[in-house]
């Protein structure tokens, strides 16, 4: 099928402002958006820049805005999107070049919630045991691949660069609800700051955007409740 790709281009060495450029390409309906982007890069315009690594929805490097919704380019099929495809970098991030955005502020916020196991007891001789039921509590939030699709779809995140964003909150949830972890108070102290979890307006864009189908908004609400009940 004949497809029109309208891609937001920005070259920091030449352009003052990002602008759209259209490409007509031939694509199979079962091709992924990533294949369509590769077709443009390999056969039409080699200057097109985008991130991709594993190309199978695991590494989380090709999150972008496809027809107004944040998706992984490697998980969306051309046939499902349609003949006119608009591709932009994610909102709320600084554009470095074309579809490549500066993820550093995002990872800075991610690191602030201490995304690692905190346990002040001496390590046991074997593993730290956990029941299947306790593991189930935070199962959904272990699936995060840090692609940034949720934060980049979040209106408070667009308007307020200081907001910690849904991705960091999801990863805090993964440890706060882990029975082996003892760092909940530290993480909740971070999230309860003025630009923390209460800047969430329950828009649900993050839940729609997550390529791993994490119920992001639900996880955020669970953290708010824990803060309320633990007072």
């Amino acid at each position, binding site marked *: 099928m004949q497809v029109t790709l309208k891609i937001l281009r920005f070259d920091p060495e030449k352009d003052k402002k990002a602008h759209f450029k259209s490409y007509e390409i031939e694509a199979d309906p079962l091709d992924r958006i990533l294949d369509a982007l590769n077709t443009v890069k390999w056969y039409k315009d080699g200057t097109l820049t985008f991130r991709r690594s594993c190309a199978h929805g695991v590494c989380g490097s090709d999150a972008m805005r496809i027809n107004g919704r944040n998706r992984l380019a490697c998980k969306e099929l051309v046939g499902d999107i349609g003949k006119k495809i608009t591709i932009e970098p994610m909102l709320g991030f600084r554009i470095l070049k074309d579809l490549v955005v500066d993820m550093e502020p995002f990872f800075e916020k991610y690191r602030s919630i201490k995304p690692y196991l905190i346990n002040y007891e001496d390590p046991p001789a074997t593993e730290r045991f956990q029941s299947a039921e306790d593991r189930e509590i935070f199962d959904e939030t272990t699936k995060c691949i840090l692609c940034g699709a949720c934060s980049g779809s979040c*209106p408070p995140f667009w308007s307020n660069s200081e907001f910690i964003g849904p991705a960091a909150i999801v990863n805090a949830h993964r440890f706060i609800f882990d029975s082996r972890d003892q760092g909940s108070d530290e993480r909740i102290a971070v999230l309860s700051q003025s630009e923390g979890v*209460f800047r969430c307006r329950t828009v649900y864009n993050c839940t729609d955007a997550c390529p791993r189908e994490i119920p992001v908004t639900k996880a955020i609400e669970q953290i*708010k409740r824990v803060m309320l009940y633990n007072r």
Partner: protein
Amino acid sequence: MAIQTPERPKTALKEPTKRSRWTRTGARPRPTNAFELYSWYFFRVSGILLLVFALTHLVVMHLINNVEVINYDFVRQRWASPLWRTFDLLLLFLALTHGMNGVRTLIYDYVQSKGWRVFNISVLYIVGIFFLLIGAQVIITFNPNLPSLPAK
């Protein structure tokens, strides 16, 4: 399904001017910000209460009675009962504080400069508390035993 708005933030292409607060977050936990927590909780509770209060107000004042019937005498009779006075006082308080809380969150979302934030929040609280006070004064000090107005 949530629809994203098409606007692109104007700041998207700019270099960040300062390092964000999240790098400064050290190992020492800061005190929990209880104000944000309780304002969030109050939002939920007042929202549910407002559903009851505002809908009752709508039904009583606009469906059972309508604006042509409502005059000084109607209000006088209504406020002769402490039940309706309490009802109106609670409706006034909940609607104003719930709305003020909403505007406050909007200011925090969209006004980033510290000075403008303080200015906007100050105006919001001054105007909000002023309306709360004059509204409460009317409801509390109204005297239902005054004679009705002479007919025109």
